[in-house]
């Protein structure tokens, strides 16, 4: 639901990451990591990004989203597994004391700028 705000944030971070020595930079691609446990719908994010990137160096850029699975580790028995359904208990020992290792990401990894 807040994908518009996220898209605006992405555009801002991407623009501020363009090195000063590149004039009239044209960003072709933004590489993102989005965890499956984050409240972001990739399709909505792409839609919003296309709107807010208009008239910026990111206009027409592709949003490349790598979805990161939810991985947990048990604090009791150290077992590590991928969570595919909403059950947050250790698959091996059934303990509820687990840490989410990945799946909450919402990171900009890099931007790709067209070569002059």
């Amino acid at each position, binding site marked *: 639901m807040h994908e518009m*705000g996220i898209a605006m944030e992405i555009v801002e971070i991407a623009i501020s990451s363009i090195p000063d020595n590149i004039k009239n930079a044209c960003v072709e691609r933004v590489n993102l990591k989005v965890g499956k446990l984050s409240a972001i719908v990739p399709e909505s994010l792409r839609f919003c990004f296309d709107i807010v990137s208009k008239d910026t160096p990111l206009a027409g850029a592709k949003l490349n989203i790598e979805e990161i699975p939810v991985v947990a580790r048990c604090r009791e028995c150290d077992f590590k597994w991928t969570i595919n359904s909403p059950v947050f208990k250790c698959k091996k020992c059934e303990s509820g004391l687990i840490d989410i290792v990945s799946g909450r990401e919402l990171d900009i*990894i890099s931007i790709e700028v067209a070569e002059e």
Partner: protein
Amino acid sequence: MEIKVVRRVLDVNEKMAQQNRNLFAEKGIFVLNVMSSPGSGKTATLERTLSYIMPEIKTAVIVGDICTSNDADRLARTGVPVVQVNTDEFGGDCHLAAHVIEKAASNIDLDDIDFLIVENIGNLVCPAEFDIGEDARVVVLSVTEGEDKPLKYPLMFRECNAAILNKIDLLPYLEYDKNSTLKNIQQINPGMPVFEISATKNTGFDPWIEWLKNKVKSKQNKKS
């Protein structure tokens, strides 16, 4: 040419949240972020809660709504300082972000309170994603909603430290499987305390109030 960025998109919010957290720690204020779906009885629960803790615990409330000051008006009647935030001033947002809390808190005398309640926007999705600098998060749900709410909104139930199950006085009139709800909550967040209450009938509040008072006191002790 690829340019490495490696930044969290919510970086700005997280920094602001940490700033809020430092300020609240310095003042010894326990901050509770209360979230729920619309209509679960969040405001009624808070009205009743305030009647239990005031004046023993000096409290202020920040109320977020997309529109209207109805909730703020109701809470102000209990005598606590209330700051209303309408998010349409900030873009009609579906959640409260850290900078909104910072601005709202500047309208509260922080030296005069021990407890700050933030009543978030009624929404089980977005508020879970945004750190506002709180100490604990509570989700309110009610027995007129589906038993599978925790499974449909796992992030919310993972991120919260406690749940309040409201409107339990309606159970005799509903085809509602309470045990199924409790099981679903434990599946998402094993060990999460669940307080079964009725805000309108004023029942079940004692364990919840005790939980709250312990949290507020331990934050005060950390300061002194």
